[in-house]
């Protein structure tokens, strides 16, 4: 497992991009809900990314990434078709339990739209009636609408500013779905912790089973460091080996959000350090380009 070649790249917006990586064995082994840990280069950190899709025939897996910090922005710059990742390990975590639910609402918020897709598809394949609820900040950020339409019986898009679909958060979409259907068996919600918390609160009074996919900080992803521990009631679980899917009504989201802020200062430092290096690199390049351009002429003179 030494070459993780990128075979496709697609940009959904100036911050969201898709990478398709060749790894036939992983494409064969992957299930909805699982994730990988990726290193861009030897000096890089290990970052967890959900497997947004997999193609067993092509032997590829798909990652959808949002450029939010140093590593994801560096990847946005460096990851082009034909280049390779330094490391990619997985599939990690326990596959999402695709229950026998007859009617399911699959909710994706922002980047969470990508990882909820394989679950929506799996529920559809298992014979469920699938309602897709996708949330974006505005119309320009909407992606994969066609993929969802292909596997959803009903489809609701929500935007913060109302530029597409209904105006409001995904919880509006959930409320709409609940008021229309009284027989919803399960809700699956993936997105930022604050959104998943909102979804869990929206379904709690109706007593509808709600599964969420947690995204704590991770290092190894194999259950040996406990960096990704999360609180479920009074129990402590490791998201990388016991999850990442948990019952949303039990998760302590405030604890998760506090722990996600653990390295805010260091993340800023890494970003500044990188941006400074990028600027210097550009200066060096333009300076050497300026020096190099008259060179052929002077060489010709000699």
């Amino acid at each position, binding site marked *: 497992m030494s070459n993780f070649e990128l075979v496709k790249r697609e940009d959904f917006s100036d911050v969201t991009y898709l990478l398709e990586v060749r790894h036939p064995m992983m494409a064969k082994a992957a299930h909805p809900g699982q994730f990988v840990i990726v290193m861009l280069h030897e000096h890089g950190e290990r970052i967890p990314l959900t497997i947004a899709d997999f193609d067993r025939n092509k032997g590829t897996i798909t990652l959808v990434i949002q450029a939010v910090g140093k*590593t994801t922005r560096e990847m946005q710059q460096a990851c082009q078709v034909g280049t390779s990742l330094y*490391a990619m390990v997985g599939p990690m975590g326990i596959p999402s339990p695709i229950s026998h639910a007859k009617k399911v609402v699959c909710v994706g918020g922002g980047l969470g739209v990508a990882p909820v897709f394989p679950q929506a598809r799996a529920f559809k394949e298992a014979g469920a009636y699938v309602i897709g609820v996708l949330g974006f900040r505005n119309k320009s950020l909407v992606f994969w609408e066609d993929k969802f339409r292909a596997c959803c019986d009903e489809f609701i898009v929500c935007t913060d500013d109302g530029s597409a679909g209904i105006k409001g958060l995904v919880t509006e979409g959930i409320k709409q779905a609940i008021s229309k259907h009284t027989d919803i068996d399960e809700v699956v919600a993936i997105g930022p912790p604050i959104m998943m918390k909102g979804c869990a609160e929206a379904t709690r009074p109706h007593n509808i089973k709600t599964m969420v996919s947690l995204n704590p900080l991770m290092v190894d992803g194999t259950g040996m*460091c*406990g960096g990704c521990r999360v609180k479920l009631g009074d129990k402590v679980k490791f998201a990388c*080996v016991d999850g990442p899917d948990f019952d949303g009504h039990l998760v302590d989201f405030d604890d998760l959000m*506090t722990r996600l802020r653990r390295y805010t200062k260091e993340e800023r430092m890494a970003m500044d350090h990188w941006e400074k290096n990028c600027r210097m690199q550009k200066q060096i390049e333009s300076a050497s380009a300026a020096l190099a351009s008259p060179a052929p002429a002077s060489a010709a003179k000699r």
Partner: protein
Amino acid sequence: MPERDPKERARSFQEVACGYQPEHALREAERCLLCPDPKCIEGCPVSIDIPEFIRRITAKDYRGAYDTIAATNLLPAICGRVCPQESQCEGVCTVGESLEPVAIGRLERWVGDLALAEGWSSAPYIEPNGYRVGIVGSGPAGMACAADMAKAGCDVTVYEAFQEPGGVLKYGIPDFRLPNPVIDAEIENLRKLGVKFECNTLVGRLFTLSDMLDEMGYHAVFIGTGAGYPSMMGIPGESLNGVLSANELLTRCNLMRARDFPKYDTPLPAGKRVAVIGSGNTAMDARRVSLRLGAEKVTCIYRRSRAESPARAEELHHAEEEGIEFHWLTSPIEILGDADGGKAGNVRGMRCIRMALGEPDSSGRPRPVPMPGSEFEVATDIVVYAIGTNANPIIGQTSKLSLNKRGYIETDENLATSMAGVYAGGDIVTGAATVIEAMGAGRRAARSMKKYLGIYQEDSDSKAERLFGIPVYEHNFARLRAA
């Protein structure tokens, strides 16, 4: 043995113990009595012929000394550094009855380092026997098992989940105790034996044990995935920011090189004051790493006394020299958060209670009993847990292997698991133990696997000695020739 000055070294990741010069090694080797009935060999978990290799050092036959060690131990530069010799070979040394025991570990290390520097290797010519062996985990157990199976002629592949091989030697034991180039050199020696390493491979998830046996063509599999899943105490405040396991701290620092942040991308929790709970080798490593990362005060919180500390004597001594503050007979009862209602969620201190030693418990050590009314506070920014680990659940989740009540893999006395052809050893069977015990388990499993594959005949009547560490009744020995 020369060592770096405690004040200076406590800020640097350079190796503390500098190793012998040839004259030191010769002088130390002269102290060995070459006992006719040596106890030290029995004290060594892999039974190195200690008097013989020391005799060869005194005879200045250094290559011979290396070959003697390499006959039973493929990783002398590692074992000489990390074995708890005081409870093994050196603990039973005859000289030690009246004087300091012979420094067997340091001599072994010196020979091992010399071999690495000179590029010696005792890789024999190996005739393939057609059997394929898969090894899960590239730590000390997996490395030892891989070496023995490769020497027996098997085609060996080692799978590792991290991006580089070495297991605990890489992510756990810091450079000032065991420099990474030493590990890489020893792994290179395994490659010379024909062992293949496949990193970034999470067995159990990418493929299962059954896949290895049924589809991937492995005739036998060894599981050496180590311990993991760090224990917490279950006291209030454990989810505060600044509370982490020693495994996380060490992995970030050692494997991911967070100590060179932001040149490397992985961050580390910064703290002026660090409290580490526990007193094993992992705890000592976590403390000394914290010191080197710039902490002003590092404390040890341990519920028993110094005498019961399971850490290697030399590490404990080094930690004391470097200025670690020890609170023996102390147990934490609560981790305290920020004054602002814990909103930022950061650690500011820890409430502890003094302990007294009571009757011996099931482990034979005196049971610590809390002393009511003795609570006190320790101010700290970081709390590191180094109180042991539980079984990693991945292999259990993804196979039909029988596990014991605590989730560790169940094996018989030959280290065979409940699945035919699958063997296991090291921390995933016994719970956290030492590097050399894991190596010993890897080698024991290798013997059983050879028997299982039929490349082993215990009833051989040949009088020949061991060759390249393989006893004669393992019949493939006849195929081994010096390269």
